[in-house]
């Protein structure tokens, strides 16, 4: 190996690739894809639930299994009827509703609640992340807009999650429909998606997000006024230190005029 080859090898070993993208291009790309990425983020939780529902269907397949939630001696149990030998995950017939496997697979009331809660957190984190990225790269987006959008998104995702939870729990608690293992998850997905859409429509109709952004802007203006007033008074007391005594001293009626 000659010196030139050695140099090339050393250089390639210490090579670091840095891609520099102009801010304009990044902003254009972000604007073009923002809506799609946000929509996709909103669908992460339903997709997760669908994967879980598919796992449950694979687990219980066509076997005539039946799921019942019953209370024995003050403890709630999920009871699987049918052929336990054909199952891979739930090999037993009776599990506590708090059993980690039951909760992880979103079976029973606790499992459904945990799944919905996880979906809510994941969606909020993703949506907030997208908004913050947008705020960082764009000069046109101010803090009020960022806070207003995130607040509106969190409220909408929260209400959707509550509606999805109610639907999932209702199907799970129904004596007849509760026996369909994937039923609560499918109901939760459908209601979550629909509630999100309905809330988006209400928002654009009444302008809730716009009102929130304006409220944050007004709060910012008021805070700036308070800051300005405080600075003005500090400046006044610096120039007139005797006025401080007037603030904390005895009233002039007792001090004879001073």
């Amino acid at each position, binding site marked *: 190996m000659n010196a030139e080859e050695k140099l090339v090898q050393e250089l390639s070993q210490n090579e670091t690739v840095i891609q520099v993208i102009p801010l304009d291009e990044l902003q254009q790309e972000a604007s073009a894809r923002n809506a799609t990425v946000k929509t996709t983020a909103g669908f992460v939780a339903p997709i997760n639930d669908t994967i879980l529902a598919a796992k449950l*269907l694979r687990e219980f397949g066509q076997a005539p299994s039946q799921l019942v939630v019953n209370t024995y001696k003050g403890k709630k149990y999920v009871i699987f009827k049918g052929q336990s030998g054909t199952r891979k995950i739930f090999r037993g017939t009776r599990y506590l509703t708090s059993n980690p496997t039951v909760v992880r697979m979103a079976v029973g009331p606790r499992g459904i609640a945990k799944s919905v809660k996880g979906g809510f957190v994941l969606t909020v984190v993703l949506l907030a992340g997208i908004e913050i990225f947008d705020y960082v790269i764009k000069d046109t987006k101010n803090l009020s807009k960022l806070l207003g959008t995130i607040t509106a998104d969190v409220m909408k995702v929260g209400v959707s999650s509550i509606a999805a939870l109610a639907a999932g729990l209702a199907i799970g608690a129904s004596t007849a429909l509760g026996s369909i293992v994937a039923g609560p998850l499918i109901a939760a997905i459908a209601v979550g998606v629909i509630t999100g859409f*309905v809330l988006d429509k209400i928002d654009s109709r009444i302008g809730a997000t716009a009102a929130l952004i304006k409220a944050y802007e007004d709060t910012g203006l008021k805070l700036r006024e308070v800051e300005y007033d405080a600075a003005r008074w500090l400046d006044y007391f610096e120039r007139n230190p005797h006025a401080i005594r007037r603030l904390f001293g005895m009233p002039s009626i007792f001090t004879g005029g001073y």
Partner: protein
Amino acid sequence: MSPKTANIVIVFFNLVGFLLVGYAINDFITVNSAISARALEIPYDSGTYYLFLIAIFWIFTILHWSGILQTEHKLKRYSSTILVAGFACLLILANGLNYYVSHHFESAGYIECDDPTEISRISKGESSIYRLNGC
């Protein structure tokens, strides 16, 4: 949740389903009529047809009332499959209608413009205004 409350919630979603499905059908008819009438401006939300997903509660109700969920019923073992197939059909319907309307807009020469009233959105789809004379 008690079974009684659960049934009330299920009945509620069944009834709300009529409203939402009615809205989606009405939107489909209105948009298509507006395209045929060559309206200059047509507001359209590509997420509207996902409202059809609420019909999953009708499938639940049909499964319940048809007696399929009774232990001795021979179709009971297929109840999960019927439910998932129904859900898949509703998803296909929502996406199919959306594709059809978007294609209809394009073939009629409409141009998709942003809807300024929409600031933040969490659900699937996009609210747009289709214009004949450009944005």
